[in-house]
């Protein structure tokens, strides 16, 4: 039998296991379901941008809120009656704001994990070899741009407040409407997702080394950390709630859903 000394070449080799993985469980199931879930969100988003039924008093579809365009936003849909984008703009109002919530989710640490795994297969699952020959991670363009996430977080706080305001307006004008309660649940989930953000956790106090010198920020951090542990479920829940709420408002606006308390 050959002797393996520390500098024998054979000792520099890993086990030459010839298969991609020896896992025997259904490791492909989670990335597959994630792929379907994220794809459905993309497909729905594209449709929601094209579709124009964004408002039925007092409900506004979340994908189109805030509604900022003079031509394409009905009177009641505008935020405080305000429509800063003049009559030159005739496209969908959702297109104007899409980049903010879209960018927030695209650069979110959890969504990054989920699409790196399910779309880019890097890696598809733990201890399953990825199909790429080279890997440089988030060190260079374009992926280094993921570091702008916190700016999207600031924007997402605003969007979250606006969705909450939309829900309040609906509650005031139609407290018994099913749509009102759908918008309320959605606003809660969206805001919980936003507050559970890793950048939020960092900003509240994660960046500090002396929690004891900042008791208020430390308490905020403790609260955000609790939410943060639920960031993945909140990401999914808020994604489906925003799709559901958006679709519901559009169906009511189109008259497809029509009952007294709709």
């Amino acid at each position: 039998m050959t002797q393996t000394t520390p500098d024998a070449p054979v000792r520099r080799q890993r086990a030459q296991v010839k298969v991609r993985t020896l896992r025997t469980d259904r490791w492909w199931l989670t990335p597959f379901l994630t792929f379907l879930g994220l794809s459905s969100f993309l497909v729905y988003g594209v449709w929601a941008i094209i579709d124009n039924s964004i408002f039925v008093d007092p409900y506004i579809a979340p994908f189109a809120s805030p509604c900022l365009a003079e031509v394409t936003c009905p009177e009641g849909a505008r935020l405080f009656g305000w429509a800063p984008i003049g009559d030159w703009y005739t496209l969908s109002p959702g297109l104007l704001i899409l980049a903010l919530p879209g960018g927030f989710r695209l650069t979110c640490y959890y969504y990054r994990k989920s699409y790196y795994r399910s779309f880019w297969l890097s890696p598809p699952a733990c201890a399953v070899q990825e199909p790429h020959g080279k890997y440089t991670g988030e060190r260079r363009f374009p992926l280094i741009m993921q570091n702008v996430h916190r700016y999207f977080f600031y924007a997402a706080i605003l969007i979250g407040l606006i969705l909450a305001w939309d829900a309040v307006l609906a509650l005031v004008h139609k407290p018994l409407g099913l749509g009102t309660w759908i918008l309320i649940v959605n606003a809660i989930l969206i805001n919980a997702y936003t507050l559970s953000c890793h950048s939020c956790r960092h900003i509240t106090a994660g960046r500090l080394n002396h929690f004891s010198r900042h008791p208020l920020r430390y308490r905020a951090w403790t609260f955000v950390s609790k939410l943060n542990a639920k960031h993945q479920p909140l990401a999914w829940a808020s994604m489906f709630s925003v799709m559901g709420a958006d679709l519901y408002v559009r169906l009511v606006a189109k008259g497809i859903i029509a009952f007294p308390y709709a």
Partner: protein
Amino acid sequence: MSYKAKFKVWRGEGGEGKLEDFTVEVNEGEVVLDIIHRLQATQAPDLAVRWNCKAGKCGSCSMEINGKPRLGCMTRMSTFSEDETITVTPMRTFPVIKDLVTDVSYNYQKAREVQSFTPPSSVRPGEYRMKQVDVERSQEFRKCIECFMCNNVCHVIRDHEENKTNFSGPRFLMRIAELDMHPYDVADRQDAAQEEHGLGYCNITKCCTEVCPEHIKITDNALIPMKERVVDRRYDPLVWLGNKIFRRGDNGK
């Protein structure tokens, strides 16, 4: 209750080797490491395996069981069905010495490359005063038993040997986060994490967290917070401006 289980165990020196088949007795309450020991005692006296405590605390018995990085001594046989063939291989990311024993010196090398705890020169040993809340975060990371399964599973080096030079792996990026969060550490950890230890390679896909036998939330509590600190230092124009105007250095933290 005992039964005969089918095992496939990696045998060989260095990288060359193959999976060898065994049929071996399993008794109630046993773990995979017990079975490996029974193989040693009965059928394969020269089968090499590294172990020490048999209590999940020394971090020696890391191996891959049915393709998943696990501690042999903490993987109960009752989690497998009786007709299942159980495959046991050495950790894939490190060179094999013999059978299930790998050469983990990569990890010791990377550990040495992390600058040690650096207190301010004005504070003498014995003068440190810290509140519990200030050290709580790092205490989670101190639970590490150095089994190196996180470094083993991390695709950055598992699938790309060439990245080993530039990437210290989750274990040591977590060590850097621990020191960076330490109230009395003054060394520059943020640039070092990004430039020398390869934090930017991590794409936060959380396999390290999934395999950690101490259930340390490596990604959520060490790697992502460290990435955010690096953003402060290198990529956030507002923080940069704020630091210029208010001169808010690390001391204000």
